[in-house]
């Protein structure tokens, strides 16, 4: 297989935050990446704040954090990122304002590829995992209807970032009361001549993987794992696949679903899944 990823300039570079917007529970940061290449849908960046990265409570964050690119408008140096505050690193990034600087390395990893045969693309996102689907819709599939799942109404505000989304919420405050995987099941029952593009929490991706496997539908899953470097240096981000451990930052984050026996949370990966420590 040829490696068609967009290469990152070597090293990290500074980019100014040009705007910031709130979408319910999420923050979108626009950054001017002057001189950087345009990323492919599904690629990611390692980000840190240029100031006060390391001095917070508990002295974290220390390492940069991985973020999918949300949007990269053509003909502009702008990169957009979607941030959900879940800990010290995302908290610091979410509080940045226009004029502040981020340090970034990227674009990294391999992104999504076009559908096989004549299949129609079907986008499925959960929570902050909707990010890579926005650029996917921009770049490849302007007419695809995304199915998006959120915890509650505050998070469902993120659905405005995509065009024509159908929504499910856990608490029923917007759209279908239930799981996005239920919307997917109904959709696949109606028409399974599709290829699924999915990103979201592990439990959602596992439900998507199982449903696609059951119906023989190909799926490209954008996974997450804890990353220290993002460029294959540390071997910290491995996920268990049928072929053994893969460095997600290098061989992913988009993985073909048939490479996986299961999508599991990193802390729950079965110790005996692959022959460790021979």
């Amino acid at each position, binding site marked *: 297989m040829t490696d068609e990823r967009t*290469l990152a300039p070597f090293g990290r570079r500074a980019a100014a935050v040009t705007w910031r917007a709130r979408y319910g529970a999420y923050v979108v940061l626009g950054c001017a990446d002057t001189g950087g290449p345009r990323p492919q849908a599904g690629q990611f960046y390692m980000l840190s704040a240029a100031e006060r990265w390391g001095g917070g409570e508990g*002295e*974290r964050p220390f*390492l940069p954090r991985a973020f999918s690119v949300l949007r990269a408008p053509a003909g502009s140096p702008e990169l957009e990122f979607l941030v959900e505050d879940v800990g010290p690193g995302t908290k610091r990034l979410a509080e940045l304002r226009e004029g502040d600087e981020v340090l970034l390395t990227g674009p990294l990893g391999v992104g999504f590829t076009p559908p096989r045969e004549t299949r129609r693309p079907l986008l499925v996102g959960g929570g902050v995992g909707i990010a890579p689907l926005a650029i996917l819709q921009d770049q490849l599939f302007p007419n695809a209807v995304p199915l998006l799942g959120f915890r509650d109404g505050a998070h469902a505000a993120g659905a405005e970032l995509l065009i024509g989304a159908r929504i499910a919420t856990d608490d029923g405050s917007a759209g279908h009361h239930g799981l996005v995987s239920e919307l997917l099941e109904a959709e696949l029952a109606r028409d399974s001549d599709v290829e699924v593009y999915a990103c979201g929490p592990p439990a959602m991706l596992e439900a998507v993987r199982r449903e696609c496997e059951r119906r023989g539908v190909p799926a490209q899953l954008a996974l997450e794992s804890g990353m*220290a470097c993002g460029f294959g*240096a*540390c*071997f910290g981000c491995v996920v268990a696949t049928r072929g053994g*451990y893969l460095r997600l930052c290098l061989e992913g984050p988009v993985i073909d679903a048939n490479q996986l026996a299961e999508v599991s949370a990193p802390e729950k990966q079965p110790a005996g899944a692959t022959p*460790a420590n021979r």
Partner: protein
Amino acid sequence: MLDFCGIALEHPIINGSGTFDAIAARRAFGDALLESFPFAAFVTKTVTVAPREGNPPPRLWEVAGGLINSIGLPNKGLHGFLAEDLPELAELPVPLIVNVMGFSRDEVAELVDAFTERDEVAALELNVSCPNVETGLVMGADPGEVAALLERVTPLTGKPLIVKLTPNAGDVPAVARAAEAAGASALSLINTLRGMALDPGTGQPWLGATTGGVSGPAVRAIALAQVYAVARAVEIPIVGMGGVQTPTDALNLLRAGADLVAVGTESFRDPAAGRRVAEGLGTIVANRT
């Protein structure tokens, strides 16, 4: 140019083993990596005789000023490395140092033998932070073990042998002296310090391998003290490392007695950290003289 065990190096900054994968970095950054390669020599991740998958995830935990890793030395094994990685690493614009580890003296001998035949390899680094399965002792924690290992392998090679000391030893200068007496060409230190973290949710060990190794700024003061002590115990050259982030950190290790300095964890934050440290160090030294 400076001379390290007969190898000409452009500047004194190299990488710590296992903290930079030049082959992966070339896939991410392309040939731009070769044009501004950040290190004066490239040290490989540890190679073992048999292939290893490494430890189950999670493998990383961030701590104040650093991280704990339980990577578990995944690698393709000697034959996989020779067939797949060595030809690519030979294309790097700098000398190549291969880091090896064996679980017995025979295994280390097999690795040293195999790399001695390869012209692409400038030097070998012996990672002795693992138990000898025959004696049950961590090779690098005991002066007698280190001496016996080196007496076995130094006659096998004309290439410089750098012994990478573990900081998890009772008397590191004593191990250093034993390595020097048994024929080591140089020493490198520090490797990571044993540490652990508990999952805040379950209270159980977070890392897949229960414990891991601490690296980064959190270990810098310990590295400085160990390099200082070892430099006073031996005459052979020293590669100092542990928490280097800035040119000043590198300068301090040189002042403590190191001849070269390795950048490790900082490359995770900034892939070009090695070049930044080398250039800044060059400026400091130029302004002094």
